[in-house]
């Protein structure tokens, strides 16, 4: 059984585009590994960062803060951020906070 709080993070760097693929629950206990992943993904100054949230089951306020921070970074340093939309049940925190319309969500495949 996978504990609900487990987080799997993969970083893929391919020239100008970096991708962070996340699976599991993003909360206060797992946010650290995501921050490390962002650091690695941005190491080569990519022009685009994709964060794949399609397999994320839960996002809490610290996860939301992480995404808003990343969004602000992308605006300051002029690179593109794309978020691959998680399942409808996970979108709750984004809708609750009004950030579903503000963050650059793309529909996943």
């Amino acid at each position, binding site marked *: 059984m996978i504990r609900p709080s487990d987080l799997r993070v993969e970083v893929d760097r391919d020239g100008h585009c970096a991708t962070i693929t996340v699976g599991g629950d993003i909360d206060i206990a797992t946010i650290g590994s995501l921050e490390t992943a962002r650091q690695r993904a941005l190491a080569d100054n990519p022009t685009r960062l994709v964060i794949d949230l399609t397999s994320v089951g839960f996002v809490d*306020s610290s996860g939301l*803060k992480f995404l808003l921070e990343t969004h602000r970074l992308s605006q300051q340093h002029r690179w593109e951020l794309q978020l691959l939309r998680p399942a409808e049940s996970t979108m709750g925190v984004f809708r609750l*906070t009004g950030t579903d319309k503000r963050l650059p969500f793309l529909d996943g495949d």
Partner: protein
Amino acid sequence: MRYVFQLLGVAGVYVASGKLGLDLAFASHSVTAVWPPTGIALAALVLGGYRLWPAVALGALLTNIDTGVPAVTVLGITLGNTLEGLTGAYLLRRVADFRPSLDRVRDVLALVSLGAMISTMVSASIGVTSLLIGNALGFSDLPSVWRTWWLGDMGGDLIVAPALLVAATHRPLVRGPGKPWEAVVLTFLVAGVSVLIFSQHTTFVYVVFPFLIWAALRFWQPGAAVASLIVAGVAVAFTANGKGPFATSGPDDRLLLAQTLVAVAETTALLLAAVTSERRRAEDSLAEIAATLQHSLLPPELPAIPGWEASSHYRPAGVANEVGGDFYDLFAIDGGWMAVIGDVAGKGAQAAALTSLARYTLRTAATLLGEPATGAVRHLNRVLYERPELSLCSAVCVRLREQANGANATIVCAGHTQPYVVRDGVPVALRTSGELAGAFDDMTLEPVALDLSNGDVLVLYTDGVTDTLGALDRFGTRRLEHALSGVRSPQQAVERIERALANFQEGVQRDDRAILAIMCT
């Protein structure tokens, strides 16, 4: 008069311990490998001030007067011993900003370097010169006698002085975590192990270290000092009688070896005690800062409002002294009341500072702005957005105006978990919506107006409640609604949620939790 008694007391102890040391002298009747008076003089001058110098001079004079050397030599030695103590005390007090309680690492290092190593050279040099002048010493013996003198005095500063300094400054004597029975056991163990080591011709003298470390960790400076004194007493007693690991060396040398071992062990123990108590002080001040902050973040208790009942619950995640990012508030505004609950994203001191900022911004803005109800939240958004680092806060502000048979509530939700109204025991979620404060320079808010009847319970809570992790999933709103079913009072609402969370939660609490429930009666 008191001063005279002090002088006589110090001089008396000095002479007594000096005679004891001279009894152990071999190479010369004036030079001994064990010289406790140095430590007594240093402790007296550090604790009592320079004005006690006549006691040191008198003590040194009386101790050396009948050792069979010429008067000029006795006077020289007296001068050397007095100057040694004054030099040590001066260096410690003036140069090192020394605290005699030895509870900082720098105090121990200062005692070892400035006191034990440097000031003792004064006495050794003047003393040896005095012996030369009085023809009590040949030139060829000078290096070894100087060394014996120096090391003997050093032993006094390292073994005797710490015990006196600690005994005089530690009130209560034991502040460490060690228990009284433990002290008794440890005393017997230290004495027993010391006797075993120093009565046999063995080489494993290092066995004393674990016991000194134990004493230092559990009983701090007093433990280190007392344990070292026991080891020193046993070591000197056996070694002087030709027993123990150093027996094969000459009489003065073996005492020096034994004493050096104890001095090194004691220094180690004192350093360890200093590190331990430094860390404890740091932890204590951290806990105090956290508690003070925490105290400023929450209303000490909810105000009593005529016609209303209110109840709250707050529980930060993690250890007791951590400050959380959740807050709530209930206060009077023009024409009514304002109930607030909020949650700042983040952890630690930064989150605590932000929590305080958010709570007082909302309180001040709501008090001053009055209308519209969304004003305070918009103001908070501006304050947070203008901060250099991303500062987020979700909050619910409820403006309450009393009316016949109840109250009118305007609920403004800024990206926060949705409040509930429990009416006739049935919980109903309030479909409010609004954006998180601090994320963007403008914000959309859709306040909801609601008439509360007498007996309706309004329940505000933070996401620490619904995000609580159970064995398989999160607590969620469904379990929250279940807990709130049949609730008739704020107190009952808070108790029910607490109990449901306690039953549901698996493992440690990860996020802060706050609940505020109010009802008009």
